[in-house]
């Protein structure tokens, strides 16, 4: 057990009780902080469903050590834009291109895209950076959305 202070979506959470040493960021977000927008898909850093931003950079949270997120700004899908607005340019592009099908991979897709844009990538580079799995096969619309960014 450890008590940590974390900054998630601009909010400071003090004395966050990490019940098990080694609990990765994903489960802390989902089960302890209740931010369920970030998804579990594989748990082994392959599918990208769990992608969040840590210090502006896209990270797969399913094996991301909570301790190394301390002192950095964590942004999850819920914190990308004010609640209910979907006003981030990537969200807008996703809606305009009607990207999601089941939607389960999309939080990770969007966060990976934001991370790639933050890192200065453009066009196809963004797609290659993303690498997220979408079992529904929404990739073509992801590509269309990315091309408008």
């Amino acid at each position, binding site marked *: 057990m450890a008590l940590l202070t974390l900054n998630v979506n601009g909010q400071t959470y003090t004395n966050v009780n990490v019940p098990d040493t080694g609990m990765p960021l994903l489960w802390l977000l989902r089960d302890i902080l209740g931010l369920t927008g970030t998804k579990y898909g594989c*748990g082994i850093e392959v599918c990208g469903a769990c992608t969040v931003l840590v210090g502006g950079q896209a990270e797969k949270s399913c094996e991301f050590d909570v301790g190394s997120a301390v002192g950095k700004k964590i942004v999850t899908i819920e914190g990308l834009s004010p609640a209910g607005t979907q006003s981030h340019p990537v969200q807008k592009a996703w809606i305009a291109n009607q990207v*999601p099908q089941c939607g389960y991979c999309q939080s990770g897709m969007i966060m990976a895209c934001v991370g790639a844009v933050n890192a200065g990538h453009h066009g196809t580079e963004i797609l290659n950076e993303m690498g997220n799995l979408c079992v529904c*096969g929404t990739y073509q619309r992801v590509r269309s959305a990315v091309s408008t960014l």
Partner: protein
Amino acid sequence: MPFTHRTTPAAEFPTVSPDIETPAQAADLSTMGRRGFLATALGGLSIAFALPDVGRVFGAKAAGGPTPQALASAYIRIGTDGTITLMFGGSEMGQGAKTGLGQILAEELMVDWRQVTVQQSPVDPIVTYITGGSSAVSGRYDNLRIAGAAARESLIAAAMLSSGDHTRANYSAASGAVTYTGGATAKSWLYKDLALAAASPAAQALVPTTLPLTDPSKFRIIGQSVQRVDIPSKTDGSAKFGIDIWFPNMVFAAIKHCPTVGGTLASTPQKPSGAIAVVPCTASDNRGLVVAGSVNAVAVVANNTWSAKNMANSLNVSWKLPASTATVDSTQLLAQAQTLLTASSGVLTAEPAPPAGSATTAAQQTGLVEPSVLATLGTPTVDATYVLPHLAHATLEVVNCTVRLTYDSTNKMVTLCEIWAPTQAANWVAGTALGLINAAPAQASNPLTAAGVVVNTTFLGGGLGRKIEQDYISQAVQVALAVKVPVKLTWSREEDMTNDNYRPMAVVNVKAKLSSGAISAWYLRNVSGSILGQRGWMAPGTVDSQAVEGAVGLPYSLGNHIVEWAPLNAGIPLGFWRSVGTSINAFAVECTIDELAQKAGLDPFVFRNSLVSDSRVKAVLAAASQMSSWRSSLPSGHAWGMAMAEWNGTIVCEVVDVSLQSGSLRVNRVACAVDCGQVINPNQVEAQMQGGIVHGLNAAMWGQITFTAGKANQKNFSNYRMIRPGEMPQITVQIVPSSASPSGTGEPGVPPIAPAIANAYSRLLNSRVRTLPFFPGATMGD
């Protein structure tokens, strides 16, 4: 104070005001009026109507299994506050069902589609629906239109009562209002102001028996690419999937199955330190070597999912394995299937069916028809054997289920069971829960009734046929009964992939004879496991419709032909995988047809066109050919291939452009022509085709689950490869206009892609690949 749990429970699911779905009203459904509708005044006009429980699974089950639910129902409600609501009992798993249904209702109700709210019914078992067979929208089209018209005519009848003129021709409905033009001055009423009177017996008496439906040429909303209502919530993390359900005092469970199919628990393992409970769980259904009621898994309960998952993973469990599990081995199964390819007994004829009224069995028919087909075949022009593997569903959201039980004052008897689950079969979920709860001695004198079970269907992070199953639901209820607090059971990816209900492996042999450019004889034998047989949904000795679909009723003229099926008893749990048997048979059929075209020296489009007479099929072929005009100018190192399949009324033809890239095949583009009857939302048809193509492509290139001594070898995406965003081919979809009734789009995009790629491959490398996947053993890293 330490922050140990989130303090704001998410706004989960709206509870529906009880006046919409009370058991009393459910009973009324059996006494519905002459038009099959029941109009009641409950805060406005409520139209209850029957929706047929359609779809692949339901149809299959009705054919030979337990008694199906005779009536599934829905409600349209027009409130005095102006709201228009459709209660939907099906599943939204990415196919845009809610949007499509809203469009259909809005069309007949003469309102803007944005005015219609489609709500998930949190279902008592009366509003049931199984979402499978690509039926969520198409299967409800007719009845929903009729119900929408009934609501509209009821509102017009209310206007008639108000004005006193009962001449229907003097009224029109548009934009949520009824207008009267029979008097000196036009008069107009908003729906909300008519809603109460519309439900009155006086108004209902004025509603015509035959309801006028909108002429399709005048459709305003059906056929439009309106934006999907669920999409914004799927871009900001607010969409709630089953895995996202949370309650303040909830506990979290993970599962560990016996890793060997058919194994059972030898003794209950010790509770790991830090765990809340260890709960042995019984299997819900018979599936191959898995026996219903046997203890084949153990759940570990903890105070978060991650701990539960880890503890389950490292739990030391001793299992009892039946001797037969050793034969659950892909190599041995393949050998067994190959023997059945030439066996003379244990084979059943799927086509031609015995003449009506004859007592001939499917097995006797084989003996009758086979010799004449073999005689015409002589030396076949093509004699090819195709091998296809078991496949996992691998929905990105692993299976999971949340259960909250309410007990009486003695804390022994369950008085309410609430379930939240990503499920394709809400009514079965209710049945599963009732069965388990009422088995407890405490319930003996006071069993929980159907009204005591509420099933909330959440968003599904992919359904793909996996989420009709009851295994995970049953386990969650068992754990809830053991711990008596709300519990969410989440399978790990590894458990999900190694304990699936798999697409069956199959070996298919096709022999065909070409005579003067046409097919004079065709022999197809499919050897595969029986999805329906495993479930007891068909009589033994009959043909499993799921095994032979896509091999029977082909649009091609095949001359003297026979289609046979030899059941393979693999012991492996089998299930409905997107496009089911057609995903297997279309590969064998379309590769063979292509090979015949090659032998005939004909273009594959020309050859196919010469074999079909159905004008819809011809139109799809023509459209696909035209869309892929790039075939004639491909760069060197590229090749094209095509294939076509018909699935439950939807016809799809796909053309691919492939090339070799660093030793691997790359699909560069796909042209897809589809006729799916009347289109509700073209944008969604396109999305479903794109999705189906990707699904089929992943399987063709890399998909396979192999078994060694009863254990699945692939456990996670690391060795169950799928394409990544940068590898996506450019897919062009063209909808061929059609006035036929709508047919589904979820599944039919899948079958043509594997044979289209194989046919392109043979053109590229001059060698035929007949075993899937093309690249076995592929891996994926981060």
